[in-house]
């Protein structure tokens, strides 16, 4: 007895840790992105009115995003969000259709007149050209003040002269005027108002911009390349990608040596989803301008969409070599994530953060990646940095809050969530987390309220249903718990833990037959869950099926051994205690299986924990306390039986045994759960 006793005494530290671990194994990999995507969709819908022209263009991007996320499937983390690419000139939007690829050479052959005229049609006829391109000066030269120096005299003479020369004399007849007028005709400078067009454009004053463009094009008969260029940019911003493409092609005809035009043609092609064609045009542009990071970057992005990741990587590295940009880092990190290479992605993001330490998006993503790998200290560090620069960053707050929750800092987490609640009040993960915070604080009614709100916002999210089931089990509302859990199972039929919880609910609803079936299903789905087997064994024992109980007990021992061999797993003291009691009752007497591994595990844990971040185990206190409080509640009823001895065990343990493991499961599952959820 002595060794076991000591084992319990010290295992206090681990118990909390175990609680966190239990659910992690199955959950961590899968959960991240999903809810987030839903949430994001919801958010986007709410924010961008679909009808408005300006935002409308973003929709195709999101349309494209969704399938991509799905494809990513298992490794859904990457912040749950495909990062949009912005070009120099305008926001990107994707179109899912990539069916028709136009022959690329086609546009280069278009004659300028043909190419341009259909693109813009002017309602008003062309204005007559001004007879004097250098009109009269704003001031009359005062003859009384002759210029002082010779140089000025020259200038002055010029200024004074011009109006005289240009002013055509009043004609006697129309015939005599015509030839003279033609002779005097001067061509306007094509680029005369380019600066004005540009200034309007960068101020996003598109109406004024279009007016100037129209005027300029009329005056130059469609030869002003920059006007067409900006018109095309505006078209693209307005979502008329095809029109913009045609205009850019016109520009490329007007000045074939300009790489910029080709880049824009390629960009429009890219936005139309014709990635291969875009790459070809980019290569064409690269011939004219070798050292352009933008070309390399965009070609890389095209390759990403074509799923040629190695080529994409090459191009993006080239881009980084030429000039470093956050965007390139993000895309490169995304490739690694798509390939499922977390470590490389982290490397890239680390470099990116080094390069631009204040980019909250980079910081958040890096933090989430660390979180995914379980390197909590670093994750917290980066998320904290992100919050320093942007204290209202939704993703960072949720992630950091969940970490606080894991460590039991429920109040701090709640304070942080308030910020999100103000900014994104309709986020299901947020309300789920808030609910679990209240759960941690043992405010069960509030917890249920929040979880129900989360469930209302995302009715098909099984994780919220799972948490609801858990809370209702704690509240001993087994009938409600049954409904939530069975709803969760309908949405996620592959989770052993759900069946186990369902079995616990059923047991309490005095339906042992179905409970057994649920346990069997749980054991089938989760091969290495000692908790499932233990609970099952207890149930069978209570039902008097000793052989079955024994089989489950042995199964549990097997999985315990497996787990112990596979890594530094610690076991919950409550579970160990229960297992020992059951072992004694079944007269297996195999306490050795437990005592040793516990010690081992503990020593291992100690060594690792000292080397590991202090944050991992230090704030465990409250969580552990919670766990203890709950189990003590259970133990309160259990005591007489446990002390009694083996012979008396038959009846009494039956009832109390049941709720207890679940009670342990709650905080653990809950907290881990939450953590996964918001990523």
């Amino acid at each position, binding site marked *: 007895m002595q060794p076991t006793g000591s084992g319990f005494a010290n295992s206090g530290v681990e118990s909390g840790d175990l609680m966190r671990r239990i659910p992690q194994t199955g959950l961590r990999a899968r959960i991240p992105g999903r809810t987030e995507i839903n949430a994001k969709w919801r958010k986007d819908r709410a924010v961008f009115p679909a009808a408005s022209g300006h935002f409308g263009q973003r929709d195709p991007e999101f349309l494209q995003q969704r399938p991509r996320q799905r494809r990513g499937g298992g490794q859904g983390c990457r912040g749950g969000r495909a990062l949009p690419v*912005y070009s120099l000139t305008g926001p990107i939007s994707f179109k899912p259709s990539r069916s028709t690829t136009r022959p690329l050479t086609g546009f280069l052959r278009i004659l300028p007149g043909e190419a341009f005229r259909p693109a813009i049609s002017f309602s008003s006829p062309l204005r007559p050209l001004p007879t004097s391109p250098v*009109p009269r000066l704003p001031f009359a030269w005062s003859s009384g003040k002759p210029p002082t120096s010779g140089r000025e005299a020259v200038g002055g003479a010029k200024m004074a002269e011009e109006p005289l020369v240009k002013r055509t004399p009043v004609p006697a007849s129309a015939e005599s005027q015509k030839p003279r007028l033609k002779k005097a005709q001067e*061509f306007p*400078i094509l680029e005369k108002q380019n*600066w004005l067009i540009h200034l309007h454009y960068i*101020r996003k004053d598109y109406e004024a911009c279009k*007016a100037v463009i129209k005027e300029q094009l009329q005056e130059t008969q469609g030869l002003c390349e920059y006007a067409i260029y900006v018109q095309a940019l505006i078209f693209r911003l307005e979502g008329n990608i095809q029109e913009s493409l045609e205009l850019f092609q016109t520009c490329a005809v007007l000045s074939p040596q300009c790489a910029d035009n080709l880049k824009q043609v390629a960009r429009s092609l890219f936005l139309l989803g014709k990635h291969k064609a875009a790459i070809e045009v980019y290569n064409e542009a690269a011939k004219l301008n070798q050292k352009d990071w933008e070309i390399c970057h965009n070609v890389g992005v095209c390759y990403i969409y074509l799923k040629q990741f190695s080529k994409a990587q090459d191009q993006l590295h080239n881009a980084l070599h030429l000039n470093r940009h956050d965007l390139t880092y993000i895309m490169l990190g995304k490739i690694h994530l798509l390939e499922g290479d977390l470590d490389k992605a982290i490397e890239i993001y680390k470099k990116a953060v080094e390069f631009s330490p204040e980019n909250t998006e980079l910081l958040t993503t890096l933090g989430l990646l660390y979180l995914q790998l379980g390197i909590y200290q670093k994750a917290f560090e980066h998320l904290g940095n992100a919050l320093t620069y942007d*204290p209202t960053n939704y993703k960072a707050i949720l992630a950091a809050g969940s970490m606080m929750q894991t460590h039991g800092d429920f109040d701090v987490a709640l304070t942080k969530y308030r910020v999100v*609640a103000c*900014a994104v009040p309709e986020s299901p993960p947020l309300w789920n987390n808030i609910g679990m915070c209240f759960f941690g604080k043992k405010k069960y009614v509030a917890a249920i309220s929040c979880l129900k709100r989360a469930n209302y916002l995302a009715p098909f999210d099984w994780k919220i249903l799972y948490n609801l089931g858990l809370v209702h089990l704690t509240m001993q509302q087994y009938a409600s718990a049954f409904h939530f859990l069975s709803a969760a199972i309908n949405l996620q039929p592959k989770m052993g833990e759900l069946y186990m919880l369902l079995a616990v609910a059923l047991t309490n609803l005095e339906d042992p037959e179905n409970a057994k079936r649920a346990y069997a299903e749980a054991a089938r789905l989760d091969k290495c869950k000692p908790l499932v087997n233990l609970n099952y064994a207890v149930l069978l024992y209570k039902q008097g099926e000793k052989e079955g109980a024994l089989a489950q007990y042995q199964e549990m021992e097997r999985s315990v051994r497996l787990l112990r061999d596979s890594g530094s797993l610690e076991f919950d003291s409550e579970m160990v205690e229960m297992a020992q009691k059951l072992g004694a009752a079944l007269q297996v007497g195999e306490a050795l299986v437990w005592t040793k591994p516990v010690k081992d595990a503990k020593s291992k844990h100690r060594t690792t924990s000292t080397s590991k971040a202090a944050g991992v185990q230090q704030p465990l206190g409250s969580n552990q306390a919670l766990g203890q409080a709950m189990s003590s509640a259970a133990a309160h009823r259990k005591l007489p039986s446990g002390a009694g001895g083996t012979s008396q065990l038959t009846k009494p343990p039956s009832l109390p045994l049941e709720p207890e493991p679940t009670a342990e499961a709650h905080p653990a599952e809950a907290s881990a759960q939450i953590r996964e959820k918001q990523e």
Partner: protein
Amino acid sequence: MAAASSSDSDSGRAESNEASSKWLDAHYDPMANIHTFSSCLALADLHGDGEYKLVVGDLGPGGQHPRLKVLKGPTVLTESPLPALPAAAATFLMEQHEPRTPALALASGPCVYVYKNLRPYFKFSLPQLPPNPLEQELWNQAKEDWIDPLTLKEMLEGIREKAEVPLSVQSLRFLQLELSEMEAFVSQHKSKSIKRQTVITTMTTLKKNLADEDAVSCLVLGTENKELLVLDPEAFTILAKMSLPSVPVFLEVSGQFDVEFRLAAACRNGNVYILRRDSKHPKYCIELSAQPVGLVRVLKVLVVGSTQESLHGFTHKGKKLWTVQMPAAILTMNLLEQRSRGLQAVMAGLANGEVRIYHDKALLNVIRTPDAVTSLCFGRYGREDNTLIMTTRGGGLIIKILKRTAVFVEAGGVAGPPPAQAMKLSVPRKTRLYVDQTLREREAGTAMHRTFQTDLYLLRLRAARAYVQALESSLNPVSVTAREPLKLHAVVQGLGPTFKLTLHLQNTSTARPILGLLVCFLYNEVLYALPRAFFKVPLLVPGLSYPLETFVESLSDKGISDIIKVLVLREGQSAPLLSAHINMPMSEGLAAA
């Protein structure tokens, strides 16, 4: 959302409300009719009388009537029309002579108009660009009639495809012509020499050899053909020429031309290039990945506003220092220099009608204006040292004077939690009833569960029974038997007492037509009358929907409605294939009468 809330918080702290405002409202005229850019605003003591005037290169409403306006106090002193839209205005000292009245330079098209004492003084025109020699040669040949227009066109097209030097307007226009027009065009224009002219896009001033406040300055011009020119202040000769990879939009200069200077040029390709005295080409390059909307140098930091609603700080070597997000798009930027306190800060006019003043990353002040500010200028105006001049999108003019007691402090720093953190969470409340129900569930959970399960089974059983019954009696509107796959739906139109009942019958089989079907209506003959209650259905071709129309007369005047049953039968078979119950609407015609 997040941005908005943070902006509220920032402005909440830095807000200039009436009492504690740092600014005196000197003048506001929403109808001043001034439409211009920051680059076309200049403050100078034009007459040398110590009274600073405001020079505005006004584009006029819609860019139609460009004017040069000189304002003294709130009133327009002089106003004269301009030949073309002004791209930039600058005041500079041309020479050392007394009285030291600054000259005014106005860049417009290919020319710089220089005024002294508000009188025209000199016009500088950009030199003509050298034409393409090949092109010149071609036109010369055309002049001698050695080549016909078609050959000329082909050759010119060849030049356009390859050549480094772009073609002149004349050639471009020629290339656009139809075959028939070419002859006339050539004969009309062949004698003219080929010209290529460029225009000025931006202009600024650079001290010549002294750093003093009132030292002689050179004009620095940015041109459309991607060049920077430095002009001699006296002789107006080109002192230096530098080339850029793109067209400059904004210029920022520091240093002296004869000693050492740094020139930053924000360009149309989204990059900022930094040049030094001895470099003909850019020494450093800042790639913004967005268009710059403003460029201001504050001491040693280059502040660039980008179209992504952010301000970026860069060193003179192009290293990024910081980024600040704005709540709205930046429209214009300029420098605020409070000499008495040695403060330099950046002002940014935003699309949401705010003017924000930043010292590095720190927000110093927010001015709210009734309209979005499109141009800004700060300096000595009249006899007041620190005057802020703003013009708005609608053409208004706002003049504010900085209080002499005003001290800009960094408003509480960036730290501190957002105010949203102090707000209470709106956790939904639960009612007493809920608690009671909870307690009840605890006590009688098992019973509830069992009742529920029993009822659920009963429900399922009943549903299954009803389904089977429906299948058996062909009560469903879709028949899925192998021989007669049919679909039926019915529409009732009209207000009554006569309704039109349309049955849509569709053969859903892939290939087989159906023949020999009958339709029968069952109805209460007291309430309704149908012309034919029983008729044959024509042959049903697969896939098509056959509308079968019949009229129904409602006989009752009591506003009663009933069900009409439609049965689809096969000849010689008593059990219907399909049936539908049509809930007839109430006859409104009778009810109303």
